[in-house]
């Protein structure tokens, strides 16, 4: 890259102008931190809600029900009003963590922008797992996409990518995709789910029924056919029954993965369970001057949750700038044991404050409980009835006394329903 056209310095640089990044930035300004820059690679701020054309957004933040785009606009307005320097169309290409200030190189249409910052917050969000990473078989024609892309077609570009898609998955986002399809007059031919029942609670499955979309459980794709565009999909049920469904698209929903490429490039420790950067209870990554917030930490949670978490992380960063956070070392490790997909934060340091709760996800349906062991000693037991892709909280204070590493698992008797879709590969 030729020499930078612009060099700036900031107290805090935030990467990602979605709900978590914008709320962290706004909070930092409210707490009197002078120079807060938010960069986002997109041309518009607001993150994923920009293309979620449906409510409900914003109850917690603005006290009323908004659509995604309206919510995104208000988040941006509030941040700018608070004095946040918002740089759009700005792609972070590297983070240099050597001594002194952190140095962030960005590519923009006007040339290279270099920002030196005392602290960084990574809030790069999540995306759904695409067809390739699911290793799905068949042809590779047009018309195979994730819900995120469908929403962009419909709400940003006003285009239809298909008229008769097959929908894969039964997470919440699959239900939202039914509404998005409705918006363009598309009629999904079926929803399929690898597990024996829906990932969302059973009651929510009234929606596909209402819309006349048949749902098939214990069903997986074995072949996708189509020379230019999808023409048919062959599915196989657990009992071995194979049949071919005519359709002109395949919508792959859910199976969210953190957009953690930047965290990885910056050399941060990545948690294999969550797929995002590992943090302590103050949201500090393995480089303690770099924090992380929002769905890049925990695939996936709501915009409102990410907003609230971003606000909290803004407070931690402000405390850190004031020298009020405890040392990042020594820390104990929190490890996801049998039945648990991930636990966030992954480390706890001694000291007051930080996130009130640990966030966890279970691999399967659970009706027993959560158990935490420090070595062989049971230090926490908590009743639990939940399923995969649902937020589980455990109070951080319950682990404050631990002196060694802790493993958190599902108590022996977790119900083994025949779910195989939860891993999404």
């Amino acid at each position, binding site marked *: *890259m*030729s020499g930078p*056209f612009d060099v700036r310095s900031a107290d805090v640089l935030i990467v990602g102008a979605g709900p978590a990044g914008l709320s962290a930035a706004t909070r930092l300004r409210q707490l009197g931190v002078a120079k807060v820059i938010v960069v986002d*690679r997109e*041309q518009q701020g607001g993150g994923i809600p920009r293309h979620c054309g449906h409510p409900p957004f914003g109850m917690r933040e603005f006290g009323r029900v908004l659509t995604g785009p309206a919510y995104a606009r208000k988040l941006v307005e509030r941040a700018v009003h608070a004095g946040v320097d918002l740089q759009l*169309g700005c*792609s972070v*290409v590297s983070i240099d963590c050597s001594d002194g200030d952190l140095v962030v190189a960005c*590519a*923009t*249409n*006007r*040339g*290279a922008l270099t920002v030196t910052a005392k602290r960084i917050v990574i809030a790069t969000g999540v*995306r*759904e797992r*695409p*067809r*390739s*990473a699911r*290793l*799905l*078989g*068949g*042809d*590779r024609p*047009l018309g195979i*996409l*994730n819900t*995120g*892309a*469908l929403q*962009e*077609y*419909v709400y*940003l*570009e*006003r*285009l*239809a*990518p*298909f*008229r008769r898609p097959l929908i894969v998955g039964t997470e919440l986002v699959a239900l939202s995709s039914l509404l998005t399809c409705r*918006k*363009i007059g598309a009629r999904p031919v079926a929803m399929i789910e690898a597990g024996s029942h829906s990932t969302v609670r059973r009651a929510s499955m009234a929606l596909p029924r209402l819309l006349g979309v048949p749902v098939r459980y214990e069903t997986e794709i*074995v*072949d996708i056919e189509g*020379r*230019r*565009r999808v023409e048919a999909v062959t599915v196989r049920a657990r009992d071995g029954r194979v049949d071919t469904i005519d359709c*002109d698209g395949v919508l792959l929903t859910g199976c969210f*993965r953190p*957009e953690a*490429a930047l965290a*990885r490039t910056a050399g941060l420790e990545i948690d*294999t369970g969550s797929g995002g950067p590992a943090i302590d209870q103050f949201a500090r990554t393995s480089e303690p001057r770099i924090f992380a917030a929002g769905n890049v930490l925990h695939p996936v949670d709501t915009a409102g949750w990410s907003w609230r978490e971003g606000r909290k992380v803004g407070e931690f960063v402000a405390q850190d700038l004031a020298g009020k956070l405890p040392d990042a070392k020594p820390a104990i490790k929190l490890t996801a044991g049998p039945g648990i997909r991930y636990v966030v934060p992954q480390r706890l340091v001694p000291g007051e404050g930080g996130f009130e709760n640990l966030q966890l996800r279970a691999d399967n349906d659970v009706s027993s409980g959560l158990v935490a062991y420090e070595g062989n000693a049971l230090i926490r037991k908590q009743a639990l009835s939940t399923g995969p892709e649902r937020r589980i909280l455990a109070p951080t204070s319950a682990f404050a006394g631990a002196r060694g590493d802790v493993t958190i698992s599902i108590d022996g008797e977790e119900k083994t329903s025949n779910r195989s879709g939860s891993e999404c590969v």
Partner: protein
Amino acid sequence: MSVADVAIVGAGAVGCAMARRFALEGARVILLERGADLLSGASKGNSAILHTGFDAPPGSVELQCMQDGYAEYLEIRDSFNLPLLETGAMVVAWTEGERAALDGIEAQARKNGVSNVRRLSAGEIRSREPNLSTRALEAVLVPGEHVIDPWSPFLAYLLQAKNHDAEVFFNTEVLSGSFDGSSWALKTTSGEHRARTVINCAGLFGDRLDARLLGAASFQIKPRKGQFVVFDKAASKLFSSIILPVPSERTKGVVLTRTIFGNVLVGPTAEEQEDRERATVDTETLKSLAAKAAEIVPGLAGMDVTAVYAGLRPATEEKSYRIAVHEDRNWITVGGIRSTGLTASLGIARHVYKLYAKLGNEHQAVASPITPRVPNLAEHLARDWQAPGFGEIVCHCEMVTLREIERALSGALPAGDFGGLRRRTRCGMGRCQGFYCNAQLATLTAGCFGSPLAVGDAA
């Protein structure tokens, strides 16, 4: 209707190199392609390795074409702005049986004039590639094997051919033809085209074209499918050489290599099939390829998969190239060009031009060729986003700019379909596979393709 000197059928790797060679030699060229863009058939799935020919049959036309093609690529690549990743390759023996074959591989390499090969002990392998599985017993190092861009060279060749008056017709399938003793009239899906000589570079359909127009084919295409898995860019830090297996009688085997785009590629499989159109992937095979890669480089276990694809190679019932001159019919068949065709294409074009000249054809070669520079797609060289004024970045995973997209959709050889746009820019090929950019690309390409990304408006 005017009569061209040659009609080349097929705009794959061989057809594009052929069009360039004949245009440079001064022939008036027409190129007929059934797909909507160049590289629509077998060529699009090539594994992007520039081979030295160390393991090709000694004395074969294939070896000669590979070595000529290799030399010419290195000579011209700078002027076209074509990249080269000088990786070198290791033929690794994992079993005692394979180890016993290394002597023969080394001897054959020397026989083929690849004299800088040498043996690596297990210890030397480890010091060169510390992340390779410790099960590697011994290897032959072939320093001249390199990684290139699988697609841009052919865009460059075809652009140069066009600069020298070649005409290219896409969506043009040759249906029938008649030869009147001096020239061919070819009936195609886009009307009639006339040329004195026909060069059949129709790849997977080469035998059918011969049968259709000459009445018989002297060979039979036996499509051989190869599936590939592409790993995330983080994987490319794990090793540098191309890791080759000890080949079997039938295939070169599964290769593990970095790509010019900064990823890691494992493949291909070798699966015989009848179908010439469908190159499907299947879950079990993809899983086993990923597992195979992790056996070779354990650090690849659990690595994110960026892309999967499959290609068909136009194998025939014999291993050798099927190049045949039908002198009385002004027809040259260039068939059975398999995986070595990427390397050999420039050499094949020279070879075929010589055969054509021997038939008594003469032209005035272009005195000062115009050499178009193609956009760089290689990750290790300067990309478009590094220069201001790119508009915006459309594909964030692969850092593809609006300026690149717009250029690929205009000019002398605009992309004819979405695959063509991807091959010209890398858009949508990254880890999110279009989660973020597919919809915007639908808008940007509206009206450009016969098969548009969107089926209609939202309303």
